[in-house]
């Protein structure tokens, strides 16, 4: 398994490409974080936005910049670095492909951002028709996606050259995982690209008058759920393959890690209806079928939970820990590279519990579109995933810039994560609670004409603002650490940790690299879950909708 020829340092030129992605990602964090702070303040009822800025404009900024821009840029940068580290430096052609992808994504981001700032696109990041944004907003988002495909092509090319040079061998684990996530992304984004290119863009340009709303939403959610797994899998890459090395332990099982990634590829796509459970026009039996498929995608996460605990326990016991939980004390709590992602892992427990509830067919009536859902994905994306991304940054950014994470920065990083956890407990906890009482998501402050029920929500909204303010403090700290690591930290060599497999774990079966098989099953599952309801939608379609600009 260990071919010693593989470099332990990411090629400097590949590092530049990855860092370019990170600069955009952290600028997005600054802008989107500020937007988030403003939203929680407005919704507390104690603050109003100045200069005629709209709440929903700010909300659009927050969603687009954090949900689409920060994530996509960070993930692509991280995956480029991980592939370069584990499969060798990119060729010039591959690197050039990566740069083309990066610039397309950046240009697209700027276009979409300008339209949002001009208040031409206050349609949120889900841009549900028939609310109609400026055509350039859709063009911008398309460019972000096309750019990410080209970035992905660079990764796939690098993987192909590794396979060619190492026939009959399983690819390095991190490379394998990055490729699974890239394939997942490509298959998923076909849906959103289809609705934008064939429905929304011609409609916003006035080439067609009407749009089929349900088809557009269905294509969006075909993309929307694998999107969240596209965010999650890079965090799982770090949890499975990097954190074990950081703590000085071993990967629990290479094969199980690969298997769970393959299961994510298969089952995270044909499940979009669980975002559309409350919609007319879809037969409930088809909804339930996708609910079952959604439950299947919980299984690899159950496997992940076991693998991670096992990695930690095996390490602790090898250090002499005894008793049921003695191993917990042996973990390196003072090391931000471990402690920060660990807090993210813990957050995934309530996050996952909420997710199971959301997906449970008619139980969704209790929480659908309430602020519970916002609380839910601020645990998944905005805690589990983002804290893991921060944890990755603490070694990856200095590794790429030829600097080191100093003791002081390490300490600050841990403080940052603790602040984040506290802020999120307030914000997400209050969101979950208010959501159960019925408070809607994506809504500005309102007393709803003096309604008693709405009055009950306000204390929770104040708690959200307290949490939001604490989180914003966390963002400032994070940006300070990032800037330090990128430009000011002392020169040196920071390790890019890559885990090794535990001795007991055996050889990795080659079947995991059989892409024809896995992509074939993925496509079959998608066809199974979507073909008939999709035909129904088109056959029973009502007259389409004209565009509305209610912003």
């Amino acid at each position, binding site marked *: 398994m260990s071919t010693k020829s593989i470099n332990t340092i990411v090629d400097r030129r590949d590092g530049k490409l990855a860092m370019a992605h990170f600069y955009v990602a952290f600028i997005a964090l600054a802008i989107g974080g500020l937007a988030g702070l403003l939203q929680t303040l407005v919704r507390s009822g104690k603050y109003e936005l100045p200069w005629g800025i709209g709440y929903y404009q700010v909300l659009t900024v927050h969603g687009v910049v954090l949900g689409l821009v920060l994530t996509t840029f960070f993930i692509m940068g991280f995956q480029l670095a991980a592939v370069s580290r584990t499969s060798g430096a990119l060729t010039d052609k591959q690197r050039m492909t990566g740069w083309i992808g990066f610039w397309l994504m950046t240009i697209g981001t700027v276009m979409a951002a300008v339209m949002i700032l001009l208040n031409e696109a206050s349609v949120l990041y889900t841009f549900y028709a028939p609310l109609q944004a400026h055509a350039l907003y859709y063009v911008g988002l398309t460019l972000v996606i096309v750019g990410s495909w080209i970035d992905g092509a660079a990764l796939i090319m690098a993987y192909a050259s590794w396979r060619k040079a190492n026939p009959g061998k399983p690819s390095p684990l991190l490379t394998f995982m990055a490729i699974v996530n890239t394939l997942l992304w490509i298959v998923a984004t076909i849906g959103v690209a289809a609705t934008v290119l064939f429905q929304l863009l011609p409609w916003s340009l006035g080439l067609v008058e009407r749009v089929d709303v349900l088809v557009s939403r269905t294509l969006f959610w075909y993309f929307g759920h694998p999107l969240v797994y596209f965010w999650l899998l890079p965090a799982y890459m770090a949890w499975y393959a990097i954190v074990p090395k950081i703590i000085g332990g071993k990967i629990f099982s290479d094969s199980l890690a690969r298997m769970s990634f393959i299961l994510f590829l298969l089952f995270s796509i044909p499940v979009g209806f669980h975002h559309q459970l409350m919609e007319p026009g879809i037969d409930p039996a088809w909804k339930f079928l996708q609910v079952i498929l959604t439950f299947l995608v919980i299984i690899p996460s159950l496997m992940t939970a076991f693998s991670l605990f096992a990695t930690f326990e095996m390490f602790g016991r090898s250090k002499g820990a005894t008793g049921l939980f003695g191993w917990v004390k042996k973990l390196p709590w003072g090391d931000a590279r471990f402690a920060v992602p660990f807090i993210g892992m813990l957050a995934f427990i309530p996050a996952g*519990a909420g997710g*199971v*509830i959301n997906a449970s067919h008619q139980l969704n009536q209790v929480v659908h579109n309430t602020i519970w859902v916002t609380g839910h994905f601020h645990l998944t994306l905005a805690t589990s995933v983002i804290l893991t991304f921060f944890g990755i940054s603490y070694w990856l950014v200095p590794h790429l810039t030829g600097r080191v994470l100093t003791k002081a920065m390490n300490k600050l990083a841990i403080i940052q994560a603790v602040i984040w956890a506290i802020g999120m407990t307030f914000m997400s906890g209050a969101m979950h609670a208010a959501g159960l009482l019925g408070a809607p998501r994506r809504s500005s402050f309102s007393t709803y004409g003096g309604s008693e029920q709405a009055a009950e929500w306000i204390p929770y909204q104040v708690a959200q603002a307290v949490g939001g303010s604490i989180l914003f403090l966390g963002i400032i700290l994070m940006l300070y650490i990032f800037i330090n690591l990128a430009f000011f930290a002392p020169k040196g060599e920071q390790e890019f940790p890559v885990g090794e497999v535990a001795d007991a774990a055996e050889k990795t079966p080659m079947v995991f690299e059989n892409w024809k098989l896995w992509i074939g099953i993925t496509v079959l599952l998608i066809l199974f879950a979507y073909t008939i309801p999709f035909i129904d939608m088109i056959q029973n379609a009502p007259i389409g909708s004209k565009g509305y600009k209610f912003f």
Partner: protein
Amino acid sequence: MAQPGIGKKTNTKVEDQSSLKGTLASVFLLGFFLIITWVGVYFLFLDRF
């Protein structure tokens, strides 16, 4: 490194280093948490009209 501490172990059985009983306990705690929250919302659903 892995030698049991002198005079410390009174148990006849030396603790198995590769034991994963803590892992099993942890995941079951997680499992119970999933069940409790799910059942909680399920009853909320039943209680409401």
